[in-house]
């Protein structure tokens, strides 16, 4: 087990090194923070709300992540395939799942760092009023889990192709489905068609539904299971895709 942990750490470390050795990571962080600021303060009407909470901040995350997470994760495996380094990596004395986990963890940590760097918003809201910081921490936690779910999906699509652009587009489409199935206009449409079971089923597949609770400070067990399942399933599928690719 110790050895597995060592391998995962080594791979995660390498992945982080390659994030920060190119300008990509910094560009990503800057864009992420700028967009967060814009949506929170301009589009979200943070001040107009007159509310000591970060609802105006978190509400945009499903949409922001829709593009930014696939952009951060699209290279994970497709780059490996393009450069041919996958042949090196998978002939090392490690189990494939360790490589998958290592890469995923590294990217997730990177997204976590991006999320942490939004702390000025938290300072602002605490300076202006006295929000319930428990709810805010819960919101951050939910946001981090949601980023993980998107990232696992990107991991999976990235393993399918050597072309990063294709990996990006396919992950955006899949993530968009996960947003839309719980998006009010869609659920309302299903409601108006008088199909409550289908509406509930569709909504339970959506990140919106599950992220909603976290924003309000509720950590529902089923939401934890949901995010855990999406991550687990997608990483497992990544392993299957890599294996079938090698098996020809």
């Amino acid at each position, binding site marked *: 087990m110790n050895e597995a942990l060592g391998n995962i750490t080594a791979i995660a470390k390498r992945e982080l090194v390659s994030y920060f050795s190119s300008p990509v990571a910094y560009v990503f962080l800057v864009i992420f923070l700028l967009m967060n600021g814009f949506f929170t303060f301009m589009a979200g009407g943070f001040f107009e709300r007159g509310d000591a909470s970060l609802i105006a901040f978190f509400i945009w995350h499903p949409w922001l992540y829709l593009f930014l997470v696939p952009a951060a994760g699209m290279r994970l495996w497709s780059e490996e395939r393009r450069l*041919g380094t996958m042949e*090196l990596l998978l002939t090392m004395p490690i189990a494939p799942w360790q490589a998958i986990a290592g890469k995923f963890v590294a990217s997730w940590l990177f997204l976590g760092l991006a999320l942490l760097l939004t702390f000025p918003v938290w300072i602002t809201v605490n300076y202006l009023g006295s929000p319930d910081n428990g709810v805010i921490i819960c919101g951050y936690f939910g946001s981090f889990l949601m980023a993980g779910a998107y990232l696992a999906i990107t991991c999976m699509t990235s393993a399918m192709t050597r072309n990063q652009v294709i990996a990006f587009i396919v992950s955006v489409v899949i993530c968009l489905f996960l947003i839309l199935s719980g998006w009010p206009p869609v659920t309302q449409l299903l409601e108006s068609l008088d199909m409550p079971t289908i509406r509930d089923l569709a909504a339970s597949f959506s990140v919106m539904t599950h992220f909603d609770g976290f924003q309000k400070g509720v950590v529902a067990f089923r939401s934890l299971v949901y995010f855990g399942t999406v991550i687990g399933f997608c990483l497992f599928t990544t392993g299957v895709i890599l294996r079938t690719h*090698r098996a020809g």
Partner: protein
Amino acid sequence: MIKVENLTRTFGPKVAVNNVSFSVGRGEILGFLGPNGAGKSTTMRMITGFIPPTGGRISVGDHDIIEEPIAAKRLVGYLPENAPSYTDMTVWQFLNFAAELRGFRGAARADAVKRVVDTCFLNNVVHQSVDTLSKGYRHRLCFAQSIIHDPQVLIMDEPTDGLDPNQKHEVRNLIRRMGEKKAIIFSTHILEEVEAVCTRAIIIDRGTIVASGTPADLKARSENAGVLSIRVSGLASDQIRQKLEDLAPVKRAALAGGEGSSLVHVRVYPKSREQNGELRSAVADLVARERWRVEEMHAEEGRLDEVFRSITMPDTRVGVR
């Protein structure tokens, strides 16, 4: 160390490797020859555990590559085709990463990295990004990665591809030196490399082994093996040819050049390979008897590229007996 039995691999309807069996022991350097697409890389990828075989068994050390992949992979160092490496790392970072995955920690890791940096002459570029390296350096870097754990088995897919003559020479020396203690398989298109380095060679074509033996064995299969080449001056070519063909062990004597000039070059083919010795003494006797002025005479060894061509492209026969 490496044992391959009835190895088969198909990609859809295409059979890439068909029922290949061989084994390589410690201290052996096996050269893998074959035209592009013959199945060399596929075979190597299966031995290193990158792709699973469709049929057959591979064991490295005593470990089956399917049943105990990690134990088997521990023994193997692998240099894939085109020597891939992570372009966004520095040489030092990349080698440290490889060492870590090979299980080196702390001081042992630093030692291992330092050792291969010295062996592969990477000192000048240690802190350079892989991006900025020339092809030769990238090759050596990937090679360094493959020997970082001093493996018992070394598998190299075209290790000298794209290197300049000096680097080729260096890599060959390195392979030969390491071949004393390890089991090595390497593939190449360069036939002189096989002669220079290998203890044994296998020619593979369309997925099957078509010839196998020491480089000398293979060369002897060439039509030119045992042919006597002789240059005589001061006589007409027809006359020389006639006299040579009258000898008992001679099958035929062909003019190889110098027609009409004063220096005639003739190649004398023996009736069978067993008669090489007789041929030589018969020709020597003839020369002495006729008092020919011989400028040069030698027995040809046979050429590997002829054997290679005639085996892998039987339609354009160069001639193998």
